[in-house]
């Protein structure tokens, strides 16, 4: 399922939705004239958060959706990722080091390291059975 409303998109909570999410974020940031490098980094961060939700949050066996909204606030981009999955707090997730992950031959665990490196601020809250993750990044425009 794909529903687009200007600065919002709603997709099914499936890995196959990730390319649609990336396309939406890239296109919208291009409309806002966000520099290519900043846009690439925001696209990656949104992809990582959504992939984590899809892979790890679970949805009680029900088909579920993820909503993404992008807003420009002064010189920053705010991306809100909203889902109805079982609670998954990316801020509280284990932040391993690269050396540990290599030694233990882990395939996962670096997505949130990337997001923490890229974004200026990450917020997480639960409201009325929604998980809400806000990502903020100062950007340059061209």
């Amino acid at each position: 399922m794909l529903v687009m409303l200007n600065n919002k998109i709603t997709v099914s909570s499936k890995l196959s939705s990730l390319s649609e999410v990336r396309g939406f974020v890239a296109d919208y940031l291009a409309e806002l004239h966000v520099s290519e490098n900043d846009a690439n980094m925001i696209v990656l961060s949104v992809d990582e958060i959504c992939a984590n939700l899809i892979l790890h949050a679970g949805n009680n066996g029900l088909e579920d959706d993820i909503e993404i909204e992008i807003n420009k606030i002064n010189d920053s981009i705010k991306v809100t990722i909203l889902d109805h999955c079982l609670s998954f707090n990316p801020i509280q997730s284990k932040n391993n080091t690269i050396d540990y992950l290599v030694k233990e031959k882990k395939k996962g665990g670096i997505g949130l390291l990337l997001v923490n490196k890229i974004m200026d601020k990450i917020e997480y809250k639960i409201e009325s059975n929604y998980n809400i993750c806000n990502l903020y990044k100062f950007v340059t425009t061209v």
Partner: protein
Amino acid sequence: MQLLTRKLNNATIISIIGDLDASSAVNLDNMISEVKIGGEKNLLFDCTGLQYISSAGLGVFMSYIQDFTDEGIFMALYGMSDKVKNVFSILGLEKLIKIFNTEEEAIDASNVK
């Protein structure tokens, strides 16, 4: 994402074409496992067609570093766009994984390892 393999000199080259994300990384992982089981000692990844990589893709390469080091298997990537290379450099992975600009440089490095 599409994966193509070919032999060149004493190396197996896997070309990665398209987006390497959480939905496609498992395919690359399976292919590397097959090549490894086949006894290949020089494994190169042609990234000239790689449009996008997320942590799931990085994680596949990372998970083989230790085994390949222990087993003397040479692994290198080449032909990345600046966009893709930048994702590796965010976490300093270019220090753990050999990355070259061209296929020729990667082949030369595999011969002199």
